[in-house]
């Protein structure tokens, strides 16, 4: 037996859920047990990985022992690890929740392998160091996600997820064309090597730009950037609650992560202010439109889905600010804020959806206006909604508060003050839609006698929400360390 701590967790993060998927697929009757075990093991691997990266910086491994150029690399830098640890903790929460969620054993059996495949794909995406491998991961993600989304079997769900599947395919094939062009131009698929090649060769600027556009266009579809979000609300709103949580909190985030990676790492010499501004404008539109639609949504899950559209929009606002900020502690802070917002949204939205699912199960529907006392009967769930809601709004203390604070600070510093208006508007609208839900928790219904009624379902939601608020809002310093950034990013 031989364990190489520096590379094994990287592999295990992907292989454990994959193995879990295989086992749960092969032994459907043991699915819950095996799946839960693998979920725990995966999360443990992810946490180990995080600790390692925190201690020793970026980890990488070229699989198969071949040259970096020839082999597929896995690599975990701060950015990837931050998202991995978020995804895996959220994933663990979702797993615990899901273990009690499905009443129908068939669905339960269908859920586990697909969910673990999705999980593997997520970790793979975050950790992959190879452009084509990313494509395969994207496809795995898309297929598993669409299949999971359709798990309720309702017509709406199938229609929505068929659309989602097609969007995903369209996006990934467009991305793949980009990869093909990139290979044509640069002759390698390794992220670092391509990045180096792009930085070195200015002659191919136009080709690189086109490649970037192809890849970003494909990923923007998957990331549901306004107005390409059209597929998201029906897909996320009609999925089973744990799946919605995973889709909204993690899957969309993965696509965004790739955009970010391309934009900041790979194509940094190609990107410019104008293009960043375009994306940010779309992001701003997403913030306003998504929040508005969330406010007007009739169903709780639709509300949550539109909220995701808005939250993704926030992330794009960072691009022009990053473009306008020279390297240094300020830019580092901005980058950390971006990651922090993404991570916070991951936790918060997962908590929100899980709680929402419980409300839905309890009430038999999720029409907001008819929820009446359901929310009141479930104090812990309402709490989870409240906590994650305040993280969605960006109220302190939550990670998104810090994110917004730094975002606005930088917006003012760089003279792009208009983003402040966008953030403000979005925040107000978010407050309106969150409290539109929360106000249902105060009625003349009978008093609940206990705080927690269904521990297995309520505690994961509550804990995830709590992380988004308390942990990320009050102790986000380690994130800077993880990202390898200079601390104390102040003007």
């Amino acid at each position, binding site marked *: 037996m031989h364990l190489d701590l520096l590379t*094994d967790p990287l592999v295990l993060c992907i292989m454990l859920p994959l193995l879990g998927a295989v086992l749960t697929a092969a032994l459907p009757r043991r699915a819950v047990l095996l799946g839960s075990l693998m979920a725990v093991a995966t999360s443990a691997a992810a946490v180990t990985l995080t600790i390692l990266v925190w201690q020793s910086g970026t980890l990488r491994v070229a*699989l*198969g022992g071949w040259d970096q150029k020839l082999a*597929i690399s896995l690599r975990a830098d701060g950015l990837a690890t931050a998202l991995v640890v978020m995804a895996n903790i959220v994933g663990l929460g979702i797993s615990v929740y899901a273990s009690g969620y499905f009443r129908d054993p068939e*669905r339960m059996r269908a859920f586990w392998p697909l969910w673990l495949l999705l999980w593997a794909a997520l970790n793979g995406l975050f950790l992959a160091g190879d452009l084509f491998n990313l494509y395969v991961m994207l496809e795995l993600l898309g297929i598993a996600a669409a*299949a999971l989304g359709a798990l309720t079997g309702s017509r709406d769900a199938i229609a929505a997820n068929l659309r989602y599947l097609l969007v995903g395919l369209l996006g990934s094939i467009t991305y793949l064309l980009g990869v093909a062009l990139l290979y044509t131009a640069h002759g390698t698929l390794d992220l670092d090597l391509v990045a180096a090649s792009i930085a070195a060769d200015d002659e191919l600027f136009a080709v690189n730009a086109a490649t970037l556009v192809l890849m970003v266009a494909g990923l923007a579809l998957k990331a549901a950037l306004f107005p390409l979000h059209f597929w998201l609300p029906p897909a996320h709103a009609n999925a089973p609650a744990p799946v919605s949580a995973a889709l909204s909190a993690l899957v969309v985030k993965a696509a965004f992560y790739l955009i970010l990676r391309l934009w900041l790492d790979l194509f940094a010499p190609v990107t410019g202010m104008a293009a960043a501004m375009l994306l940010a404008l779309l992001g701003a539109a997403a913030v306003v439109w998504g929040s508005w639609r969330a406010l007007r949504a009739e169903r709780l899950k639709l509300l949550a889905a539109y909220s995701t559209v808005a939250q993704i929009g926030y992330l794009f606002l960072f691009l022009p600010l990053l473009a306008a900020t020279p390297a240094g502690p300020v830019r580092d802070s901005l980058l950390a804020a971006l990651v922090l917002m993404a991570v916070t949204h991951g936790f918060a939205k997962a908590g929100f959806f899980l709680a929402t699912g419980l409300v839905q199960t309890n009430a038999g529907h999720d029409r907001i206006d008819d929820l009446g006392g359901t929310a009141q009967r479930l104090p812990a769930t309402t709490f989870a909604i409240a906590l994650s809601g305040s993280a969605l709004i960006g109220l302190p203390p939550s990670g998104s508060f810090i994110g917004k604070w730094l975002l606005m600070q930088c917006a003012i510093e760089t003279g792009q003050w208009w983003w402040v208006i966008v953030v403000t508007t979005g925040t107000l609208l978010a407050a309106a839609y969150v409290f539109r839900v929360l106000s249902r928790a105060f009625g003349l219904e009978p008093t609940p006698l206990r705080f927690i009624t269904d521990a297995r379902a309520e505690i994961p939601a509550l804990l995830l929400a709590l992380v988004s608020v308390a942990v990320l809002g009050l102790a986000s310093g380690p994130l800077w360390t993880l990202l390898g950034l200079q601390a104390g990013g102040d003007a």
Partner: protein
Amino acid sequence: MTQTSDRARQRAQARAQERARDLSLLLGVLLALLGAVLLGLYYLALDGGAAPRLAELALARLPESGVGNPVTAVLVNYRAFDTLVELAVLLAAVLGIWSLGPAPPGFQRSGAVLAGMVSWVVPLLIVASGYMLWVGGYAPGGAFQAGALLGAAGVIVRLAGDPTAGLPAEATQRWLLVLGVLVFALVGLGLMLFGAGFLTYPPKLAKWLILLIESAATIAIAAALAAAYVGGRPAPSKAAIDDYGSDSSP
């Protein structure tokens, strides 16, 4: 009343159609321009691109890979991870299909001619598949081609009226489906545990490990393709019904 509403609907439909046409025209123009730009840039890329790319390297390391066919070497050795994930994709698709409910009923039992042909073709395909698998080691061929052929055999069997497409019962079928990923993963992880690194084949064992993986992959791919063609979870056997109860509604 209904007439007017009908007419209104028709008018709305006409407007929608018109708009769709406008949009498709617009799209056409846009895409044509985009295509042109892409072509131009593609030219630049071809021209100014890094000429050696990975070919030299891949070919140079071929002897260490354990196979003679460079494509197979890439697939199962240099970029084995891709293949592993790709098998997972296939698995995901089948599981997704299964999650949507039981398979639709198969086709009518084939007539004598078709049945005769099937009884000819299927063994041929199986043999061809085996050949493909073997030849993949040093010439074009390999698990995918083999699996595809084998899968095609399943398709033909289903077309000929066997609703199971020649696949075994669900429990076994599940093992077949996961076999590729399972073997791949176990080999990879096993190597890792023994200190070689994930999917790092020791040169001595490389050939045999690859063969093992390829064989498993072939079976898995074939099973997956056939199962996908069946289009749903296999109808549960009687034993399974007793086992799970009758709660198999989607």
